[in-house]
């Protein structure tokens, strides 16, 4: 399995169920991720999003910053909490 596919699997596992996370929170969740994984995190997230396997939405923080949260596409569709 290529490094990219492995990273994609890891991310999908981390987002399994109803889990929602920003990129930084994903890194925290996947404790022990390699430097290569962190370098390839955002390209992989964007590729998964482009393939329709992950959905994303923006949320504003109280400090006025915007964060992009992602979750599994299927969980996104079946969830009642949008």
């Amino acid at each position, binding site marked *: 399995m290529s490094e990219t596919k492995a990273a994609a699997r890891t991310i999908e596992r981390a987002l399994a169920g109803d889990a929602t996370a*920003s*990129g*930084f929170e994903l890194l925290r969740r996947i404790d022990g991720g390699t*430097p290569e994984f*962190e*370098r*390839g995190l*955002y*390209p*992989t997230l*964007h*590729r998964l999003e*482009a393939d329709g396997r992950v959905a994303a939405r923006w949320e504003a923080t109280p400090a006025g*910053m*915007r*964060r*992009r949260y992602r979750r599994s596409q299927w969980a996104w569709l079946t969830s009642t909490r949008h």
Partner: protein
Amino acid sequence: MPASVFAILSIVGVLVAYAFVVGWLDRRTARLERERLDLESKLAPDDLPPGAGTFLGAIDRSLELPADLRAEIRAELHAHLSDSIEALEAEGLDGEAAAREATARLGRPEELARQLRAAHQTTRRLLAGAAGGVFWTGVGLFEGWVIAIFLLVLGLPAILAAAWVVTALHISPDWDAAGANTLVYCLLLAVTAFIAARRGNAAVATISRRPARRIGRCWGVGGAAAVALLVLFVVPVEQTAFVPPAELAIAAAFAAGALVRPGRALVGRPPVRAVIAASLIAFLVPTLVLVAAGTSQTELTAIGGELSPAALGWDRVAREYPGTEGALRTDGAEMRQPVIEFNATIDGLSLAGWRDVRFEAWRSRRIGPINHYAIDARFATPFATEPAVADSAGAYRVRFELGHVRSTDYWTIFLTGVGPDGGRYRIGMGRPAESRFNGTIWDWMTAAE
């Protein structure tokens, strides 16, 4: 200057001018884009340490994605760096060291930008973009045609005024409605192509997530080549020496539409009052010129007393045989582009003893507004001859093919023969008329003079 040389020089001129203009526009667009990106980098949020801001700026410059997508990526990475720096500071690093470490963990900005670009610019999106581009080009064709007609209505007085000036100054003695119509159509289609190319290019860029400027190069060059091939080899049009460059201008307009400020508004929204004022001026001034010109339509001196065979050039065809006035009776002349079919009978003259009786098709030129023609003095021989052979009913039929002959917009057909005294005489003439060279540019370039 022969028409073919003129046409070739015109085409080369249009292409060279196009290359210069497109090159200049491309460089200018790239410069404006760089300036905008630099400005955006300078306006980057300053709540991050300088190293992180520089990192984000470097990614932004290397992304080559649509502006809205770049902004999203920038915001996402900004939030990530902010969180990461905060976490590293909590571990005891100072601000600058935390920023250095946070950016280092994301890797080289150029490499990250390359990977992000690759994640969005997939082949599937490119194919979908191409299909969407074709669809939106079709929509743009309709939209562009409506706008072009509107502009034509607005500029109609100016066109009429220009036509009046051309006629009054005798700039083009062969000025005629058919050639003018073709040129106006080319102009309308150029506007249409320009707008359609913009529509299509914007659609491809949006769907394929590629920069409109980069897509514009392929879309513009590919579309222009397709249009050029279409007008060069496929679509038959009434051709004159002025038409090939005008037709190629349609292709150039398509390329310009894809390359001029792609993905952005061409002009800012002008004030409504300025638009109304400009429209009124564009409409009223030429109208006033036309009104001032009144009915002083130029009367050609050849009309009214000078329409002798010598003045019209018929004597250059052959001397008139004594007593043949009205010998040739035209039963019917049918002009179907690019063929003349001519039926005639001969009254009151026996052709017994005559030899080499033939129909001669001579190039003519129109010397008046309606049905006044003279032999075109530039040509000393007919452009076609056909032997005159009577059928059993005594009728003559002749057919001339004009498909690959230039300069036959106007023609006159004469019947001549070698009389009993051995000299060639003009026995009569058929009704002069006009036809147009109806073919592609390639036909025009390769046609006989």
